[in-house]
């Protein structure tokens, strides 16, 4: 287990593995974590982050965030920036759930105002935002309409009445990443996705009603700027992605890459799960354009879910959504690869930044931020386990050390099967209800997988990102109502 003996301590929160650790490493690897978090990391993190360091075109370091654990190819929590011209693009560095991400929504309500409505709110949300493995949504689309939607993203939703214009500027890429090309996705991908707009999915995806207490505001000025202005303010946070569609896009292109990687491009990789193609190659560009369709599908998915949330709150509380202050704070992905400009060796360079289980955290003034957040830095939404709470952070200037990337959640400490052995879903639900968290789930055993102790301590994770200077704490939220996918 203990990987710490193999790491060089650079600071209290930065640990390095030099290139001579493994044959083929082009750059050193860096793990961002406190000593305690590193000690809890599995051997797979060390092995995988150093595998990533061998990929062609990687710049500066292969990174792993404080919530890292082993994943498909890359560790979850992995960040790797590739040179646009000579680097590769790898589905294993993005994740199968492309643009899995978080959205945070404000209300002007206090906990006391909704307390008595909590069960009704959660029950109604559970009905209107379908959860579960294959669940289908209420937005009925033809295959052609779906192909249009994946090119237009959340903008399509707003144009069709599912949301407000202002939602778009509060979404990464303004809800529509450019360059999405539906001619690059397979029919099978369309078939898996076209009924899933407006659905949470399964696994660790959730929708939560949360409360922010006064003592959990860490930066009052930023909290105010992000819309947290009243004591015991209720917010809504949700976590989901591109469902079966993103999974199929990744699967389709993994197959393409496995065929051409070695024979056509002469790329030798250590782990087949790191299958890749040169970013500039036709195959790499096709995947990039298809992956962007999944990015847009996911933005659209979260946009429709926000629309449903507004409907439910408005119905239950019999007030207009605008009157309830149901404004979005931000929507940010934690499974993507994006072309960004970063300073490398003193010069601006175009890099393809893979973030898999890692969140973009642009500092103040960054290009790509809406005017609203130009001064504050980007809001970063970190989902904790359903029992322990979640965070709102902000990007900072010193985030340049990780290409402006930070953690995405608390990260598992035990396998799903181990969690299932230790916890029982129904008992957990009753226990949580006694503690003031009302939960609805599509799966009891799935609930057990998400028990608080199955995850790293969220406080330690975000404190590590703050200590390392890759993001700063703004507020912490406590769950009061939860729908587990």
């Amino acid at each position, binding site marked *: 287990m203990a990987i710490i003996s193999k790491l060089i301590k650079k600071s209290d929160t930065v640990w390095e593995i030099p290139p001579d650790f493994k044959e083929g490493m082009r750059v050193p690897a860096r793990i961002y974590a406190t000593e305690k978090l590193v000690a809890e990391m599995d051997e797979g993190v060390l092995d995988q982050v150093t595998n990533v360091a061998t990929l062609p075109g990687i710049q500066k370091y292969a990174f792993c965030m404080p919530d890292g654990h082993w994943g*498909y190819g890359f560790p979850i929590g992995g960040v790797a920036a590739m040179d646009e011209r000579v680097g590769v693009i790898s589905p294993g560095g993005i994740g199968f759930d492309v643009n899995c991400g978080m959205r945070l929504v404000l209300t002007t309500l206090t906990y006391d105002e909704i307390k008595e409505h909590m069960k009704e709110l959660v029950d109604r949300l559970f009905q209107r935002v379908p959860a*579960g493995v294959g669940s289908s949504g209420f937005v009925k689309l033809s295959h052609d309409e779906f192909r249009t939607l994946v090119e237009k993203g959340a903008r399509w939703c707003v144009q069709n009445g599912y949301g407000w214009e202002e939602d778009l500027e509060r979404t990464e890429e303004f809800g529509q990443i450019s360059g999405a090309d539906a001619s690059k996705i397979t029919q099978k991908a369309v078939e898996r996705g076209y009924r899933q707009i407006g659905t949470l999915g399964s696994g660790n995806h959730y929708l939560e009603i949360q409360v922010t207490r006064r003592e959990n505001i860490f930066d009052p000025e930023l909290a105010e700027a992000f819309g947290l202005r009243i004591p015991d303010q209720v917010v809504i946070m949700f976590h989901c992605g591109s469902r079966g569609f993103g999974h199929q896009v990744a699967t389709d292109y993994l197959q393409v890459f496995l065929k051409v990687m070695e024979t056509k491009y002469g790329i030798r990789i250590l782990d087949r799960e790191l299958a890749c193609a040169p970013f500039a190659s036709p195959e790499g560009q096709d995947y990039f354009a298809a992956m962007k369709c999944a990015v847009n599908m996911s933005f659209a998915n979260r946009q429709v879910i926000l629309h449903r949330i507004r409907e439910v709150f408005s119905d239950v509380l019999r007030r207009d959504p605008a009157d309830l202050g149901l404004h979005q704070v931000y929507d940010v992905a934690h499974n993507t690869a994006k072309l960004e400009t970063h300073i490398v060796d003193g010069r601006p360079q175009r890099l393809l930044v893979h973030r898999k289980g890692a969140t973009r955290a642009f500092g103040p003034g960054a290009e790509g931020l809406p005017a609203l957040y130009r001064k504050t830095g980007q809001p970063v939404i970190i989902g904790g386990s359903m029992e322990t709470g979640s965070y709102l952070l902000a990007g900072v200037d010193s985030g340049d050390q990780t290409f402006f990337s930070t953690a995405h959640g608390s990260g598992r400490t035990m396998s799903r099967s181990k969690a*299932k052995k230790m916890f029982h879903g129904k008992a957990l639900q009753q226990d949580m209800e006694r503690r003031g968290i009302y939960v609805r789930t599509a*799966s009891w055993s799935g609930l057990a997988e998400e028990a608080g102790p199955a995850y790293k301590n969220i406080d330690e994770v975000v404190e590590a990102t703050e200590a390392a200077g890759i993001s700063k704490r703004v507020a912490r939220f406590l769950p009061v109502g939860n729908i587990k996918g």
Partner: protein
Amino acid sequence: MADIPKTPMMLITGSLGSGKTTLLRRILDSAAPNRGQPPALQAGNPAAGPAARIAVLMNEFGELAIDSRVISGKNIDIIELAGGCVCCSMTGEFESAVREIIETVGPDYIVVEATGVAESDALVFEVEDNLPEVRLDSVVCIVDAYLGTRHPYVGYTSRSQIASADIILINKVDLVTPAEAQTVEAGVAQYNDRAAFLRTVKCGVDANLLFGQTSRHRGGSLFPASEDKFDSFAWTSEKSLDKTKFDELVGELPQELIRAKGFVRFEEGGRLFNYVVGRADFEEFDVAGTELVFIGRNLDRLRPEIENRLNECRV
């Protein structure tokens, strides 16, 4: 429980392109009527007989069932396949989907295809702990020998699939040399020292080995035999057996013994018995006497010892 037999289930895992769909096709083809031998000649295979009804459960419909009419249930969508088999895609969660299949389709056997990235250990636990209606018959993991030769490193997702498998098919051995197949197998064996390893071409595996004994069918082998040669022997007894002694024997079966199955009569009652590489299952069942089949490697050497111990079990 004796009056409601458990539905046997096979989990198929393996990385992308390793051969999961090929194995599924073989299983389904074998279940179609008018294939293979007359039912009377078949023994021990649920895929045998004209009426074997296999339900395949997958996350989403794959290549097996495109352009077919979909019947929507509560937790599953169902497509009828040739020969009375069905393909089901999950629309709800796993446990409910399995229960719905048992209630509405009533299959003789359920095959679950886990996607290329599934955490199969969690699925195994789910079946064993939360689905008393189901008996986990085997967990089969398919490894691509060709890709495994080109990329010997075993990824972490594959490791978790390998670790939870009973039977590991080292598939596509026609594309590599025997030495290369051996290297791939040795690499995989680091993560599972319990499983039976079989080298296959296009997932050609002996069904007798793949399937345990089911309560409804006493079928036979329909698949072309795999590359490996297996031995088998039968053992019968009219007398009841001592459960404690039998359990001891089962607990000490050698690694070369891959599968054992059949019907056992104990003093306390009959049982449907299934064993695969160290994992044994007994289900209450009305039997007249004991009929067992043992399948594995080097049985010529092992058979006398096993038979001696079986004879000692006789009450």
